[in-house]
Protein backbone atom coordinates (compact mmCIF):
# COMPACT_ATOMS: atom_id res chain seq x y z
CA UNK A 1 0.00 0.00 0.00
CA UNK A 2 1.42 3.36 -0.98
CA UNK A 3 1.36 6.30 1.39
CA UNK A 4 -0.72 8.26 -1.05
CA UNK A 5 -4.38 7.56 -1.50
CA UNK A 6 -5.03 6.93 -5.17
CA UNK A 7 -8.09 7.35 -7.31
CA UNK A 8 -8.37 3.54 -7.27
CA UNK A 9 -8.53 3.47 -3.50
CA UNK A 10 -11.08 6.28 -3.42
CA UNK A 11 -13.28 4.38 -5.89
CA UNK A 12 -13.07 1.30 -3.67
CA UNK A 13 -13.98 3.34 -0.58
CA UNK A 14 -16.95 4.93 -2.35
CA UNK A 15 -18.32 1.48 -3.05
CA UNK A 16 -17.68 0.18 0.44
CA UNK A 17 -18.86 3.18 2.45
CA UNK A 18 -21.71 4.45 0.30
CA UNK A 19 -22.58 1.71 -2.18
CA UNK A 20 -21.59 3.90 -5.16
CA UNK A 21 -19.86 2.01 -7.96
CA UNK A 22 -17.60 4.05 -10.22
CA UNK A 23 -14.62 2.68 -12.14
CA UNK A 24 -11.32 4.51 -11.41
CA UNK A 25 -11.01 5.70 -15.02
CA UNK A 26 -14.38 7.42 -14.81
CA UNK A 27 -13.55 8.84 -11.42
CA UNK A 28 -10.32 10.22 -12.89
CA UNK A 29 -12.37 11.90 -15.62
CA UNK A 30 -14.77 13.32 -13.05
CA UNK A 31 -11.91 14.46 -10.86
CA UNK A 32 -13.27 17.99 -10.65
CA UNK A 33 -16.95 17.10 -10.60
CA UNK A 34 -18.96 17.43 -7.39
CA UNK A 35 -19.31 14.41 -5.13
CA UNK A 36 -23.07 15.00 -5.31
CA UNK A 37 -23.00 14.37 -9.05
CA UNK A 38 -21.28 11.06 -8.32
CA UNK A 39 -24.04 10.16 -5.86
CA UNK A 40 -21.99 10.64 -2.70
CA UNK A 41 -23.84 12.56 -0.01
CA UNK A 42 -22.36 14.08 3.15
CA UNK A 43 -22.83 10.87 5.16
CA UNK A 44 -21.11 8.90 2.42
CA UNK A 45 -18.10 11.20 2.49
CA UNK A 46 -18.02 11.04 6.28
CA UNK A 47 -17.96 7.24 6.00
CA UNK A 48 -15.04 7.39 3.57
CA UNK A 49 -13.11 9.66 5.98
CA UNK A 50 -13.82 7.20 8.82
CA UNK A 51 -12.58 4.26 6.76
CA UNK A 52 -9.36 6.12 5.90
CA UNK A 53 -8.75 7.09 9.52
CA UNK A 54 -9.14 3.47 10.63
CA UNK A 55 -7.03 2.19 7.76
CA UNK A 56 -4.12 4.61 8.26
CA UNK A 57 -4.47 5.06 12.01
CA UNK A 58 -4.33 8.82 11.75
CA UNK A 59 -6.97 11.57 11.94
CA UNK A 60 -7.91 13.35 8.73
CA UNK A 61 -8.30 17.13 8.60
CA UNK A 62 -11.80 18.31 9.59
CA UNK A 63 -12.24 19.92 6.18
CA UNK A 64 -11.90 16.56 4.41
CA UNK A 65 -15.53 15.63 4.92
CA UNK A 66 -16.58 19.00 3.51
CA UNK A 67 -14.68 18.53 0.25
CA UNK A 68 -16.71 19.23 -2.85
CA UNK A 69 -14.71 17.24 -5.42
CA UNK A 70 -12.49 14.15 -5.54
CA UNK A 71 -9.49 16.38 -6.35
CA UNK A 72 -10.09 18.60 -3.33
CA UNK A 73 -10.58 15.54 -1.12
CA UNK A 74 -7.46 13.66 -2.27
CA UNK A 75 -5.32 16.80 -2.04
CA UNK A 76 -6.43 17.33 1.57
CA UNK A 77 -6.10 13.75 2.81
CA UNK A 78 -2.80 13.14 1.02
CA UNK A 79 -1.23 16.30 2.41
CA UNK A 80 -2.38 15.18 5.88
CA UNK A 81 -0.84 11.74 5.35
CA UNK A 82 2.43 13.29 4.14
CA UNK A 83 2.78 15.58 7.16
CA UNK A 84 1.66 12.81 9.51
CA UNK A 85 4.26 10.39 8.13
Amino acid at each position, binding site marked *: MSDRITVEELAELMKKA*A*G*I*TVVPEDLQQQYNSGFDAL*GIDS*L*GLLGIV*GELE*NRYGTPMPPDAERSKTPRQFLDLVNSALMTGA
Partner: protein
Amino acid sequence: MSEPHPRRAAITGIGVVAPNGATTENFWKSTKEGISVLAPVTREGCEHLPLRVAGEVRDFEASSAVEERYLVQTDRFTHFAMAAADLALDDARLGQADTGDSPFSVGVVTAAGSGGGEFGQRELQRLWGKGSRFVGPYQSIAWFYAASTGQISIRRGFKGPCSVVAADEAGGLDAIAHAARAVRRGTDVIVAGATEAPLAPYSVVCQLGYEELSTVEDPERAYRPFTEGACGFVPAEGGAMLVVEEEASARERGARVRATLAGHAATFTGASRWEQSREGLAEAIRAALDEAGCAPEEIDVVFADALGVPEADRAEALAIVDALGSHGRRVPVTAPKTGIGRGYCAAPVLDTAAAVLALENHLIPPTPNVFDICHDLDLVSARARAAELRTALVLSRGLMGSNSALVLRHGAADAS
Protein backbone atom coordinates in the same frame (compact mmCIF):
# COMPACT_ATOMS: atom_id res chain seq x y z
CA MET B 1 -72.32 28.85 -9.28
CA SER B 2 -72.35 25.18 -8.43
CA GLU B 3 -70.76 23.74 -5.32
CA PRO B 4 -67.31 22.31 -6.03
CA HIS B 5 -67.19 18.55 -5.64
CA PRO B 6 -65.46 17.49 -2.45
CA ARG B 7 -62.11 15.85 -3.09
CA ARG B 8 -62.17 12.12 -2.37
CA ALA B 9 -59.25 9.78 -1.84
CA ALA B 10 -58.93 6.60 -3.88
CA ILE B 11 -56.52 3.69 -3.99
CA THR B 12 -55.13 3.35 -7.51
CA GLY B 13 -52.08 1.18 -6.88
CA ILE B 14 -51.14 -1.71 -4.60
CA GLY B 15 -47.63 -3.03 -3.99
CA VAL B 16 -47.14 -6.02 -1.71
CA VAL B 17 -44.00 -7.74 -0.44
CA ALA B 18 -45.38 -10.35 1.96
CA PRO B 19 -44.37 -13.69 3.46
CA ASN B 20 -46.85 -15.46 1.16
CA GLY B 21 -45.88 -13.54 -1.98
CA ALA B 22 -43.37 -10.88 -3.00
CA THR B 23 -45.76 -9.47 -5.59
CA THR B 24 -49.39 -8.43 -5.24
CA GLU B 25 -50.51 -11.24 -7.57
CA ASN B 26 -48.74 -13.94 -5.57
CA PHE B 27 -49.96 -12.46 -2.30
CA TRP B 28 -53.59 -12.58 -3.44
CA LYS B 29 -53.26 -16.08 -4.88
CA SER B 30 -51.92 -17.45 -1.58
CA THR B 31 -54.32 -15.36 0.49
CA LYS B 32 -57.48 -16.46 -1.31
CA GLU B 33 -56.37 -20.08 -1.18
CA GLY B 34 -55.74 -19.81 2.54
CA ILE B 35 -52.18 -21.07 2.34
CA SER B 36 -50.30 -20.70 5.61
CA VAL B 37 -46.61 -19.91 5.26
CA LEU B 38 -45.91 -19.71 8.99
CA ALA B 39 -42.73 -21.73 9.55
CA PRO B 40 -39.72 -22.10 11.83
CA VAL B 41 -37.60 -18.95 12.09
CA THR B 42 -34.51 -19.23 9.86
CA ARG B 43 -33.17 -15.67 9.87
CA GLU B 44 -29.49 -15.60 10.82
CA GLY B 45 -28.86 -15.39 14.54
CA CYS B 46 -32.49 -16.02 15.44
CA GLU B 47 -32.59 -19.81 15.24
CA HIS B 48 -31.80 -20.42 18.91
CA LEU B 49 -34.19 -17.81 20.34
CA PRO B 50 -37.47 -18.77 22.07
CA LEU B 51 -39.53 -17.36 19.18
CA ARG B 52 -39.98 -20.53 17.11
CA VAL B 53 -42.38 -19.56 14.31
CA ALA B 54 -42.72 -16.44 12.16
CA GLY B 55 -43.81 -15.18 8.76
CA GLU B 56 -40.56 -14.64 6.83
CA VAL B 57 -40.36 -13.09 3.38
CA ARG B 58 -38.35 -15.72 1.54
CA ASP B 59 -38.63 -14.95 -2.17
CA PHE B 60 -37.30 -11.40 -1.99
CA GLU B 61 -33.85 -10.51 -3.34
CA ALA B 62 -33.07 -7.01 -2.12
CA SER B 63 -30.23 -6.60 -4.64
CA SER B 64 -32.59 -7.06 -7.56
CA ALA B 65 -35.21 -4.73 -6.08
CA VAL B 66 -33.10 -1.71 -5.09
CA GLU B 67 -29.84 -0.10 -6.18
CA GLU B 68 -26.58 -0.90 -4.41
CA ARG B 69 -26.38 2.42 -2.60
CA TYR B 70 -29.67 1.68 -0.84
CA LEU B 71 -28.46 -1.79 0.10
CA VAL B 72 -25.51 -0.17 1.85
CA GLN B 73 -27.33 2.83 3.27
CA THR B 74 -30.68 1.40 4.44
CA ASP B 75 -32.18 -1.48 6.44
CA ARG B 76 -34.20 -4.44 5.23
CA PHE B 77 -37.48 -2.77 6.26
CA THR B 78 -36.67 0.11 3.89
CA HIS B 79 -35.71 -2.31 1.09
CA PHE B 80 -39.22 -3.79 1.46
CA ALA B 81 -40.74 -0.29 1.43
CA MET B 82 -38.90 0.82 -1.72
CA ALA B 83 -39.76 -2.42 -3.52
CA ALA B 84 -43.43 -2.21 -2.49
CA ALA B 85 -43.59 1.47 -3.50
CA ASP B 86 -42.21 0.57 -6.96
CA LEU B 87 -44.85 -2.14 -7.36
CA ALA B 88 -47.63 0.22 -6.24
CA LEU B 89 -46.54 3.02 -8.57
CA ASP B 90 -46.24 0.58 -11.48
CA ASP B 91 -49.71 -0.72 -10.67
CA ALA B 92 -51.05 2.85 -10.69
CA ARG B 93 -49.13 3.50 -13.93
CA LEU B 94 -47.35 6.46 -12.39
CA GLY B 95 -43.82 6.63 -13.72
CA GLN B 96 -41.06 9.21 -13.73
CA ALA B 97 -42.64 10.75 -16.84
CA ASP B 98 -45.90 11.36 -14.95
CA THR B 99 -44.48 12.74 -11.73
CA GLY B 100 -41.12 14.18 -12.81
CA ASP B 101 -42.53 17.56 -13.85
CA SER B 102 -44.52 18.05 -10.67
CA PRO B 103 -42.46 16.62 -7.82
CA PHE B 104 -44.34 18.67 -5.21
CA SER B 105 -47.61 16.96 -6.10
CA VAL B 106 -46.47 13.58 -4.75
CA GLY B 107 -45.85 12.83 -1.06
CA VAL B 108 -45.03 9.79 1.06
CA VAL B 109 -46.50 8.54 4.37
CA THR B 110 -45.31 5.43 6.17
CA ALA B 111 -45.71 3.90 9.59
CA ALA B 112 -43.20 1.63 11.32
CA GLY B 113 -43.11 -0.05 14.67
CA SER B 114 -39.46 -0.71 15.19
CA GLY B 115 -37.36 0.72 12.36
CA GLY B 116 -34.12 -0.79 11.09
CA GLY B 117 -33.24 -3.33 13.76
CA GLU B 118 -30.90 -5.46 11.67
CA PHE B 119 -28.83 -2.49 10.45
CA GLY B 120 -28.80 -0.97 13.92
CA GLN B 121 -27.65 -4.18 15.56
CA ARG B 122 -24.74 -4.56 13.13
CA GLU B 123 -23.51 -1.03 13.80
CA LEU B 124 -23.98 -1.30 17.57
CA GLN B 125 -21.97 -4.52 17.53
CA ARG B 126 -19.20 -2.58 15.79
CA LEU B 127 -19.48 0.12 18.44
CA TRP B 128 -19.04 -2.31 21.35
CA GLY B 129 -16.82 -4.75 19.48
CA LYS B 130 -14.35 -2.41 17.78
CA GLY B 131 -15.08 1.12 18.92
CA SER B 132 -17.01 4.21 17.94
CA ARG B 133 -14.75 4.92 14.94
CA PHE B 134 -16.06 1.76 13.27
CA VAL B 135 -19.72 2.80 13.28
CA GLY B 136 -20.80 3.84 9.78
CA PRO B 137 -22.48 7.25 9.40
CA TYR B 138 -25.59 5.74 7.77
CA GLN B 139 -26.47 4.29 11.17
CA SER B 140 -27.71 7.81 11.97
CA ILE B 141 -30.63 7.38 9.57
CA ALA B 142 -31.02 3.70 8.65
CA TRP B 143 -32.31 2.46 12.03
CA PHE B 144 -34.82 5.28 12.28
CA TYR B 145 -38.49 4.31 11.92
CA ALA B 146 -38.89 7.36 9.64
CA ALA B 147 -36.24 6.09 7.19
CA SER B 148 -38.59 4.53 4.65
CA THR B 149 -40.58 7.71 4.06
CA GLY B 150 -37.36 9.67 3.49
CA GLN B 151 -35.69 7.10 1.27
CA ILE B 152 -38.75 6.56 -0.96
CA SER B 153 -39.02 10.32 -1.33
CA ILE B 154 -35.31 10.68 -2.18
CA ARG B 155 -35.18 7.70 -4.52
CA ARG B 156 -38.26 8.69 -6.52
CA GLY B 157 -37.78 12.46 -6.28
CA PHE B 158 -41.11 13.09 -4.50
CA LYS B 159 -41.15 16.48 -2.79
CA GLY B 160 -44.79 16.71 -1.68
CA PRO B 161 -45.94 16.37 1.94
CA CYS B 162 -44.00 13.56 3.64
CA SER B 163 -44.79 12.17 7.06
CA VAL B 164 -44.33 9.24 9.37
CA VAL B 165 -47.07 8.01 11.64
CA ALA B 166 -45.87 6.65 14.97
CA ALA B 167 -49.02 5.09 16.38
CA ASP B 168 -48.33 1.47 17.18
CA GLU B 169 -49.49 -1.32 14.86
CA ALA B 170 -52.72 0.56 14.14
CA GLY B 171 -50.44 3.26 12.71
CA GLY B 172 -50.51 1.31 9.46
CA LEU B 173 -54.19 2.21 9.04
CA ASP B 174 -53.60 5.70 10.36
CA ALA B 175 -50.93 6.22 7.66
CA ILE B 176 -53.48 5.40 4.97
CA ALA B 177 -55.97 7.78 6.60
CA HIS B 178 -53.29 10.46 6.82
CA ALA B 179 -52.67 10.02 3.09
CA ALA B 180 -56.39 10.39 2.41
CA ARG B 181 -56.50 13.62 4.39
CA ALA B 182 -53.47 15.00 2.50
CA VAL B 183 -55.19 14.20 -0.80
CA ARG B 184 -58.42 15.86 0.36
CA ARG B 185 -56.40 18.94 1.33
CA GLY B 186 -54.98 19.23 -2.17
CA THR B 187 -52.01 16.92 -2.78
CA ASP B 188 -52.46 14.89 -5.98
CA VAL B 189 -50.80 11.64 -4.92
CA ILE B 190 -49.53 10.08 -1.69
CA VAL B 191 -47.57 6.83 -1.58
CA ALA B 192 -48.67 5.35 1.74
CA GLY B 193 -48.24 2.19 3.73
CA ALA B 194 -45.96 0.28 6.06
CA THR B 195 -43.27 -2.38 5.96
CA GLU B 196 -41.42 -4.03 8.83
CA ALA B 197 -38.38 -6.27 9.28
CA PRO B 198 -38.56 -7.40 12.91
CA LEU B 199 -36.88 -10.77 12.42
CA ALA B 200 -33.31 -9.91 13.38
CA PRO B 201 -31.83 -11.12 16.70
CA TYR B 202 -31.97 -7.79 18.56
CA SER B 203 -35.51 -7.11 17.34
CA VAL B 204 -36.68 -10.60 18.26
CA VAL B 205 -35.23 -10.27 21.75
CA CYS B 206 -37.14 -7.00 22.17
CA GLN B 207 -40.37 -8.77 21.20
CA LEU B 208 -39.83 -11.59 23.69
CA GLY B 209 -40.98 -9.14 26.35
CA TYR B 210 -44.48 -9.02 24.84
CA GLU B 211 -46.70 -11.38 26.77
CA GLU B 212 -48.94 -11.56 23.68
CA LEU B 213 -46.13 -13.10 21.55
CA SER B 214 -46.63 -16.76 20.69
CA THR B 215 -43.62 -18.99 21.28
CA VAL B 216 -45.45 -22.15 20.26
CA GLU B 217 -43.31 -24.44 18.08
CA ASP B 218 -45.98 -25.94 15.80
CA PRO B 219 -46.68 -23.57 12.85
CA GLU B 220 -50.26 -24.84 12.63
CA ARG B 221 -50.96 -24.07 16.28
CA ALA B 222 -48.85 -20.99 16.93
CA TYR B 223 -51.39 -18.35 15.85
CA ARG B 224 -55.05 -19.30 16.18
CA PRO B 225 -57.19 -16.27 17.10
CA PHE B 226 -60.88 -16.68 18.02
CA THR B 227 -60.34 -20.32 19.08
CA GLU B 228 -59.91 -22.07 22.45
CA GLY B 229 -56.35 -22.70 21.31
CA ALA B 230 -55.48 -18.98 21.04
CA CYS B 231 -51.95 -18.61 22.42
CA GLY B 232 -50.76 -15.24 21.17
CA PHE B 233 -49.61 -13.93 17.81
CA VAL B 234 -46.80 -14.80 15.43
CA PRO B 235 -44.74 -11.87 14.07
CA ALA B 236 -44.05 -11.29 10.39
CA GLU B 237 -41.95 -9.15 8.09
CA GLY B 238 -42.71 -7.42 4.78
CA GLY B 239 -45.66 -5.15 4.11
CA ALA B 240 -47.43 -3.09 1.50
CA MET B 241 -47.49 0.36 -0.04
CA LEU B 242 -50.51 1.92 -1.71
CA VAL B 243 -50.94 4.77 -4.16
CA VAL B 244 -53.61 7.09 -2.79
CA GLU B 245 -54.83 9.83 -5.10
CA GLU B 246 -57.68 12.18 -5.73
CA GLU B 247 -60.49 10.16 -7.22
CA ALA B 248 -61.71 12.57 -9.92
CA SER B 249 -58.24 13.35 -11.27
CA ALA B 250 -57.33 9.66 -11.12
CA ARG B 251 -60.34 8.84 -13.29
CA GLU B 252 -59.47 11.73 -15.57
CA ARG B 253 -56.00 10.38 -16.23
CA GLY B 254 -57.52 6.97 -16.92
CA ALA B 255 -56.26 5.31 -13.74
CA ARG B 256 -58.09 2.33 -12.33
CA VAL B 257 -59.81 3.37 -9.10
CA ARG B 258 -59.46 0.19 -7.10
CA ALA B 259 -61.22 1.43 -3.96
CA THR B 260 -62.16 4.64 -2.23
CA LEU B 261 -61.11 5.51 1.30
CA ALA B 262 -64.47 6.36 2.80
CA GLY B 263 -63.92 6.68 6.54
CA HIS B 264 -61.42 6.21 9.35
CA ALA B 265 -61.13 6.80 13.07
CA ALA B 266 -58.67 5.92 15.81
CA THR B 267 -58.87 5.68 19.60
CA PHE B 268 -56.52 4.80 22.44
CA THR B 269 -57.26 2.57 25.42
CA GLY B 270 -53.85 1.79 26.96
CA ALA B 271 -51.14 -0.85 26.59
CA SER B 272 -52.31 -4.47 26.81
CA ARG B 273 -55.64 -3.41 28.30
CA TRP B 274 -57.52 -5.74 26.02
CA GLU B 275 -60.84 -5.69 27.84
CA GLN B 276 -60.91 -1.91 27.44
CA SER B 277 -60.02 -2.21 23.75
CA ARG B 278 -63.63 -3.37 23.23
CA GLU B 279 -64.93 0.10 23.89
CA GLY B 280 -62.11 1.81 22.01
CA LEU B 281 -62.42 -0.36 18.93
CA ALA B 282 -66.22 -0.03 18.86
CA GLU B 283 -65.90 3.74 19.08
CA ALA B 284 -63.34 3.75 16.25
CA ILE B 285 -65.72 1.68 14.09
CA ARG B 286 -68.68 3.98 14.82
CA ALA B 287 -66.68 7.10 14.01
CA ALA B 288 -65.26 5.58 10.82
CA LEU B 289 -68.77 4.59 9.67
CA ASP B 290 -69.96 8.07 10.51
CA GLU B 291 -67.25 9.70 8.41
CA ALA B 292 -68.05 7.32 5.56
CA GLY B 293 -71.78 8.00 5.80
CA CYS B 294 -72.13 4.24 6.01
CA ALA B 295 -74.84 2.29 7.87
CA PRO B 296 -73.71 -0.80 9.82
CA GLU B 297 -75.73 -3.04 7.46
CA GLU B 298 -73.70 -1.79 4.50
CA ILE B 299 -70.53 -3.45 5.80
CA ASP B 300 -70.10 -6.59 3.70
CA VAL B 301 -66.92 -7.96 5.26
CA VAL B 302 -64.72 -7.27 8.29
CA PHE B 303 -60.96 -7.82 8.28
CA ALA B 304 -60.33 -8.43 11.96
CA ASP B 305 -57.32 -7.45 14.04
CA ALA B 306 -57.28 -11.04 15.37
CA LEU B 307 -54.57 -10.76 18.01
CA GLY B 308 -54.85 -14.37 19.15
CA VAL B 309 -55.04 -13.58 22.88
CA PRO B 310 -58.34 -14.86 24.36
CA GLU B 311 -59.17 -11.64 26.19
CA ALA B 312 -58.33 -9.52 23.13
CA ASP B 313 -60.26 -11.79 20.75
CA ARG B 314 -63.31 -11.58 23.03
CA ALA B 315 -63.04 -7.78 23.14
CA GLU B 316 -62.84 -7.59 19.35
CA ALA B 317 -65.78 -9.96 18.78
CA LEU B 318 -67.88 -7.91 21.22
CA ALA B 319 -66.74 -4.60 19.73
CA ILE B 320 -67.89 -5.67 16.26
CA VAL B 321 -71.37 -6.39 17.63
CA ASP B 322 -71.36 -3.25 19.83
CA ALA B 323 -70.69 -1.11 16.76
CA LEU B 324 -72.62 -2.97 14.07
CA GLY B 325 -75.52 -4.27 16.19
CA SER B 326 -77.10 -7.57 15.19
CA HIS B 327 -75.43 -7.19 11.77
CA GLY B 328 -72.16 -7.79 13.62
CA ARG B 329 -73.16 -11.41 14.23
CA ARG B 330 -74.07 -11.97 10.57
CA VAL B 331 -71.36 -10.08 8.69
CA PRO B 332 -68.53 -12.30 7.40
CA VAL B 333 -65.34 -11.73 9.38
CA THR B 334 -61.91 -12.84 8.18
CA ALA B 335 -58.29 -12.69 9.34
CA PRO B 336 -55.99 -13.83 6.52
CA LYS B 337 -53.02 -12.76 8.63
CA THR B 338 -53.20 -16.11 10.45
CA GLY B 339 -51.46 -17.52 7.38
CA ILE B 340 -48.62 -14.97 7.28
CA GLY B 341 -48.30 -13.57 10.80
CA ARG B 342 -48.66 -10.05 12.13
CA GLY B 343 -46.25 -7.61 10.58
CA TYR B 344 -46.88 -4.94 13.22
CA CYS B 345 -47.67 -1.68 11.32
CA ALA B 346 -47.56 -3.62 8.06
CA ALA B 347 -50.35 -5.98 9.16
CA PRO B 348 -53.31 -3.63 8.68
CA VAL B 349 -51.87 -2.35 5.38
CA LEU B 350 -51.66 -5.93 4.08
CA ASP B 351 -55.25 -6.37 5.33
CA THR B 352 -56.24 -3.24 3.42
CA ALA B 353 -54.59 -4.63 0.26
CA ALA B 354 -56.41 -7.93 0.79
CA ALA B 355 -59.69 -6.06 1.37
CA VAL B 356 -59.35 -4.15 -1.92
CA LEU B 357 -58.59 -7.41 -3.74
CA ALA B 358 -61.56 -9.06 -2.02
CA LEU B 359 -63.87 -6.23 -3.13
CA GLU B 360 -62.61 -6.55 -6.70
CA ASN B 361 -62.86 -10.32 -6.84
CA HIS B 362 -66.07 -10.65 -4.79
CA LEU B 363 -64.28 -13.23 -2.74
CA ILE B 364 -63.61 -13.22 1.02
CA PRO B 365 -60.27 -14.89 1.75
CA PRO B 366 -60.19 -17.41 4.59
CA THR B 367 -58.49 -17.51 7.99
CA PRO B 368 -55.85 -20.29 7.82
CA ASN B 369 -55.44 -22.66 10.78
CA VAL B 370 -58.64 -21.36 12.41
CA PHE B 371 -61.72 -23.61 12.31
CA ASP B 372 -63.03 -24.16 15.87
CA ILE B 373 -64.33 -20.66 16.57
CA CYS B 374 -65.45 -19.97 20.13
CA HIS B 375 -66.98 -16.51 19.61
CA ASP B 376 -70.30 -15.36 18.21
CA LEU B 377 -68.87 -14.39 14.82
CA ASP B 378 -69.35 -15.60 11.25
CA LEU B 379 -65.65 -16.20 10.70
CA VAL B 380 -64.65 -17.28 7.17
CA SER B 381 -62.41 -20.14 8.16
CA ALA B 382 -61.57 -23.07 5.91
CA ARG B 383 -61.91 -21.69 2.41
CA ALA B 384 -62.68 -18.47 0.60
CA ARG B 385 -66.32 -17.44 0.36
CA ALA B 386 -67.85 -15.79 -2.70
CA ALA B 387 -69.98 -12.76 -1.86
CA GLU B 388 -71.25 -9.55 -3.42
CA LEU B 389 -68.91 -7.04 -1.82
CA ARG B 390 -69.16 -3.27 -1.95
CA THR B 391 -67.88 -2.11 1.42
CA ALA B 392 -65.18 -3.49 3.72
CA LEU B 393 -64.15 -2.64 7.27
CA VAL B 394 -60.51 -3.14 8.32
CA LEU B 395 -59.65 -3.21 12.03
CA SER B 396 -56.32 -2.89 13.80
CA ARG B 397 -55.10 -2.69 17.37
CA GLY B 398 -51.62 -2.16 18.72
CA LEU B 399 -49.95 -3.75 21.72
CA MET B 400 -49.49 -0.28 23.14
CA GLY B 401 -53.20 0.54 23.07
CA SER B 402 -54.10 2.09 19.71
CA ASN B 403 -57.34 1.05 18.00
CA SER B 404 -58.16 1.97 14.43
CA ALA B 405 -60.89 1.31 11.85
CA LEU B 406 -60.96 1.99 8.12
CA VAL B 407 -63.96 1.81 5.75
CA LEU B 408 -63.23 1.02 2.08
CA ARG B 409 -65.69 1.16 -0.81
CA HIS B 410 -65.36 -0.76 -4.04
CA GLY B 411 -63.80 1.44 -6.72
CA ALA B 412 -66.62 0.93 -9.19
CA ALA B 413 -69.35 1.47 -6.60
CA ASP B 414 -69.12 5.26 -6.68
CA ALA B 415 -68.04 5.70 -10.28
CA SER B 416 -70.56 8.51 -10.76
